[in-house]
């Protein structure tokens, strides 16, 4: 196993234990910049960790990034690991990241669904949901991207526990969701929220539950265009952008509809590579190119958030 984040192999997929060890190494190597927060526990009792990148201050304006809420989307957790290292490398070297961190904090949740992720390694590589049990059903798990208190229960999610888009019995029923909700509310100063999924190469903004444009649509659309342009500049990867509803399909109870409803204007969700050849089984050789290109889009969004306080 890697002894430092410099020898950690970013080009392969890792288990939950390995990623948690990576986080500890990163914190130990960068105590002035990185800390690890536990924001809750999973249904099966695992700790839920968030990395905080901060140069000081108290509850500064912040940007939230999460990866891996759908556990089988392994390229997202792998990219999140790469992002974490990249932030520490770029701080003090790259003017944009340095300026962002001089004014704001970044929170990064690399494994947003730890139970599901562990299950993908131990039992079922294609597990997507949480691992919670539903009374009265033999089926397990809730889609954590339909469990948020934003048009919860409306069309675009399932009430059947045996489906992959099962919304749960009530909003925030999943501790993995509730932990973020509590953290975001308690913090109160998060200005950008980016939730990262795979695959199909999309950059999406609210709404997912309705085709009504959100009040900031023009700005969010323009920023999405700039982010996608930056992303594509590296490897030519083609992205589509737009609202969730109009670009893919109706999805109620989703993450960024809730964050937007909380007043976090810059709420986005990514769908990373691929073009449809491998789906969730993206070869490990594509982890770094995926992370690199996504990083360019993230920096574009984070820089815009920093430059447009509200």
């Amino acid at each position, binding site marked *: 196993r890697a002894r430092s984040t410099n020898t950690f192999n970013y080009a392969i997929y890792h288990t939950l234990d390995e990623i948690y060890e990576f986080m500890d190494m990163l914190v130990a190597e960068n105590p002035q910049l990185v800390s690890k927060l536990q924001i809750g526990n999973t249904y099966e009792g695992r700790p839920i960790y968030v990395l905080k990148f901060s140069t000081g201050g108290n509850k500064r304006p912040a940007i939230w990034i999460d990866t891996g809420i759908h556990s089988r989307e392994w390229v997202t957790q792998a990219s999140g690991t790469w992002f974490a290292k990249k932030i520490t490398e770029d701080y003090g070297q790259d003017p944009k990241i340095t300026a962002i961190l001089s004014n704001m904090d970044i929170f990064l949740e690399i494994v947003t669904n730890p139970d599901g992720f562990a299950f993908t390694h131990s039992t079922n590589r294609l597990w997507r949901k949480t691992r919670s049990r539903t009374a009265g059903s033999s089926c397990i798990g809730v889609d954590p991207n339909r469990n948020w208190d934003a048009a919860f229960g409306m069309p675009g999610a399932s009430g059947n526990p*045996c489906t992959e888009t099962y919304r749960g019995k009530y909003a925030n029923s999943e501790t993995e969701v509730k932990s973020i909700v509590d953290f975001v509310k308690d913090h109160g100063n998060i200005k950008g929220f980016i939730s990262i999924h795979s695959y199909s190469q999309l950059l999406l903004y609210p709404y997912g539950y309705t085709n009504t444009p959100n009040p900031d649509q023009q700005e969010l659309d323009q920023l999405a265009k700039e982010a996608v342009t930056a992303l594509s500049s590296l490897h030519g990867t083609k992205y589509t952008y737009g609202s969730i509803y109009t670009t893919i399909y109706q999805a109620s109870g989703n993450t960024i509809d809730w964050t937007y409803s909380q007043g976090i204007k810059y709420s986005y969700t990514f769908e990373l590579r691929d073009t449809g050849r491998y789906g969730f089984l993206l070869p490990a050789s594509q982890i770094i190119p995926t992370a690199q290109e996504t990083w360019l889009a993230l920096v574009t969004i984070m820089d815009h958030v920093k430059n447009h306080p509200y």
Partner: protein
Amino acid sequence: LENFVGHQVLRISAADEAQVQKVKELEDLEHLQLDFWRGPAQPGSSIDVRVPFPSIQAVKVFLEAHAISYSIMIEDVQSLLDEEQEQMFAFQG
């Protein structure tokens, strides 16, 4: 580990709203145990679905009967998973 030998991922192209609705009907047939990686949305956007081996024939017959075009995106899911595991083990070794 759950075994996905013989599972295929089909990429379905629904040409119009009627075909999208037909694929949604497929989604409702629980006994087929389909796993939609990209669900049915609007005409023109791809639909990706993992089909367990015992359901492959039924699904393909359904699609062909309704003139819905598809291609095989992943021929055998387990073979990809085996490659992935080998890579992880190789690194650990």
